[in-house]
């Protein structure tokens, strides 16, 4: 294979890996937004917090798999706590559509809070999580060698995507979630305990952020600014993909990953302008995003 082809494929896989990671974050973001209408700005902070919790579990046990199992659960627990204690409280104020702004402010506050708490606990230095030995090194694929851990991320995200699709599209629980995403009031009128489903979805969303956070740990260093980077990207994914659309989130995540990778290759420094230009264009003509169905 000639060098250019190898180059193109490599960049494509790079984009895929980052896109997959982004999808893990954005899927939770879009689920929570689509279902509960909460623009959870703190979502990316949960992502970062998961990386730190994983770092701490690694420091205690040295086992990456344990961290991958436990840290997302801890984060999901925190998310559920936040939903039940805080978000539910302001829902009770009955603020109508202004609720969105209140939730926005609350989650902004929580985001800053998490970032500062992380700084106080773990300090401002970057921390490093080591990938398990089984996932180190390179694996031959597509006629070249590629880092195993990045392939692992692709695999992990794919399996979660499949799992999530099965849960959402093939089970009654999934039907309920999708129904509630579209019309929570009607769903509750059919005898379904929607507040409980809300809590479940919030937990699921933060769990996804947690998984992404642990997976991102060995790929990026863990530092307090990690959340800001992810926040903007997942914002774009959710806005472009359509609020609450899992498929949209997946496609836009891939697109963004590839744009970044090929942007570095062909037009370094301009991919931001292209990306936001594209976003402006899409939102002007499809305000609900490319795959959005509901306001």
């Amino acid at each position: 294979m000639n060098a250019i082809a190898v180059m193109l494929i490599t960049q494509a896989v790079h984009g895929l890996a980052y896109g997959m990671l982004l999808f893990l974050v954005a899927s939770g973001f879009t689920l929570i937004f689509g279902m509960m209408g909460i623009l959870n700005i703190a979502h990316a902070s949960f992502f970062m917090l998961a990386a730190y919790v994983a770092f701490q579990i690694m420091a205690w046990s040295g086992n990456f798999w344990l961290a991958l199992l436990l840290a997302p659960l801890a984060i999901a627990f925190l998310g559920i706590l936040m939903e039940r204690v805080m978000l539910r409280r302001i829902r009770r104020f009955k603020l109508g559509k202004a609720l969105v702004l209140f939730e926005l402010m609350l989650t902004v506050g929580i985001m800053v809070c998490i970032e500062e708490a992380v700084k106080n606990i773990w300090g401002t230095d970057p921390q490093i999580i080591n990938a398990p030995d089984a996932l180190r090194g390179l694996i031959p694929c597509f006629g070249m060698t590629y880092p195993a851990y990045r392939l692992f991320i692709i695999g992990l995200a794919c399996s979660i995507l499949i799992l999530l699709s099965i849960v959402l599209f093939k089970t009654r629980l999934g039907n309920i979630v999708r129904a509630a995403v579209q019309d929570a009031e009607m769903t509750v009128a059919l005898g379904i305990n929607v507040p409980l489903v809300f809590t479940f979805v919030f937990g699921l969303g933060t769990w996804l952020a947690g998984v992404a956070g642990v997976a991102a740990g060995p790929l990026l260093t863990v530092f307090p600014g990690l959340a800001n980077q992810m926040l903007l990207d997942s914002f774009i994914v959710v806005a472009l993909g359509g609020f609450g659309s899992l498929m949209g989130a997946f496609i836009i995540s891939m697109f963004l990953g590839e744009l970044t990778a090929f942007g570095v290759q062909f037009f370094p420094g301009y991919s931001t302008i292209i990306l936001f230009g594209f976003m402006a264009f899409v939102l002007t003509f499809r305000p609900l995003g490319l795959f959005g169905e509901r306001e």
Partner: protein
Amino acid sequence: MKSIRAIAPPVTCICLLCLYIISMDIGAARAFTPLQADFSSYDPEKQEIPSGDTIKVGLLEPFSGQSASAGEISNWLLGWVVHDINSQGGIMVDGKMKKIQVIKADTATQPVVAKRALQRLILNDKVDFFVGTAGSHIAIIGNQMAEKYQKIFLNYSAYSVHLMNAQNFNRYTFRTCSTTDINARGLAYYFSKTPIRKFYILCQDYSYGQDFGASMKKALKEFVPTAEVVGEVYHPLWLKDFAPYLSKVQASGAEMIISSDWPPDSWNLMLAIDQMGMTIPVAGQFFDDPRMGENLKNKKVGLGNTVVNFHLCNVETERNSRFNKIFHERYKDNAKVQIDWPTGVVGGVIGHFYWFFDVVQRAGTLNTEKIINLWEGDTYESFAGKLTMRKCDHQAVMDMFVSTLVSPSKWSKTGNGLGYQEQAVRIPADIVMSPCPEGLK
């Protein structure tokens, strides 16, 4: 009685002599000796802040935001020096021993926040001097405010060469760290003695990174005419994923990446190199962090990383050995500060602080003009070598040190991991220093 009378005159004489010596010692403007305090009690986390009639030093650094760790480090470096001086009683200024009080001001690495913080430092907290700062775009605010309010500004960590050119120069700002130009010249000179010829420039996309890229190209042209810059790319600050950049580097056939990155970007870069299974070394100022070395699993990664700095712990001088020893004793088991041997920046900046307070001590006053007059042209023996404050642009003239990371190294944590080579290469000031900028005398 008799015996007392007999020994009274010599005792009196001795007492008087002692008093004379003591008073002479206090009265004379003397340079203090660094590293006198007992550092075993020094805890960067809990610094004693003296109050009352003190010398107030503003520390302008990011304490929040993405670069907060830079501020933290500066704070404990300054704290180290202040601890030393304060436990010796302080500095004699205007006929009075005064302790040093550090007042922190947060820039959040944003010029506007920095400006406000500086106004508070100067107008509200009434600091005598201020020191800083990470980020060239912040330092330029420091320059302006120093000039406006006629306060001395010690810049120890903003490297952009244009900060002290004819347009931005003012007589209140002193720069003790190197510049992008000096770093680049040091590196290029070093490479002229090695067979490495293919370089890839990978820097951060803002003024400092761009300055370094430009300086590097100029210096390579001057010192290594046969060198080839096979690629040049500027990445955004706080980049998430280096992989696409590294694939580009790999395809270019480069033998050495030249990068101005600082943490967390420098860490991310090394980590990505590790993950990609690449072994191309990186040259720059911040690729010697021991914490990074400990965490790279592939032992070939990081080998050959070339560090250029105005101080390195493997520079063999008497002062440096002493400093290294104290530092190592203090920090080798500290879990929070995982730097067991002082990295270049750490040692260098501590030296710069000593120099600054030494100047104040010798001036014997807080009067700005007197300190400026004394400092211009002043020479100080720092840990690694001599520093001279050039009068024309207030840029410290210094030898530069280049070291390659090897393994095993006695400068690694375990003694057989990745670390500096045995001894740094000293590149004399007359090679690395560029002449005074045009328009300045």
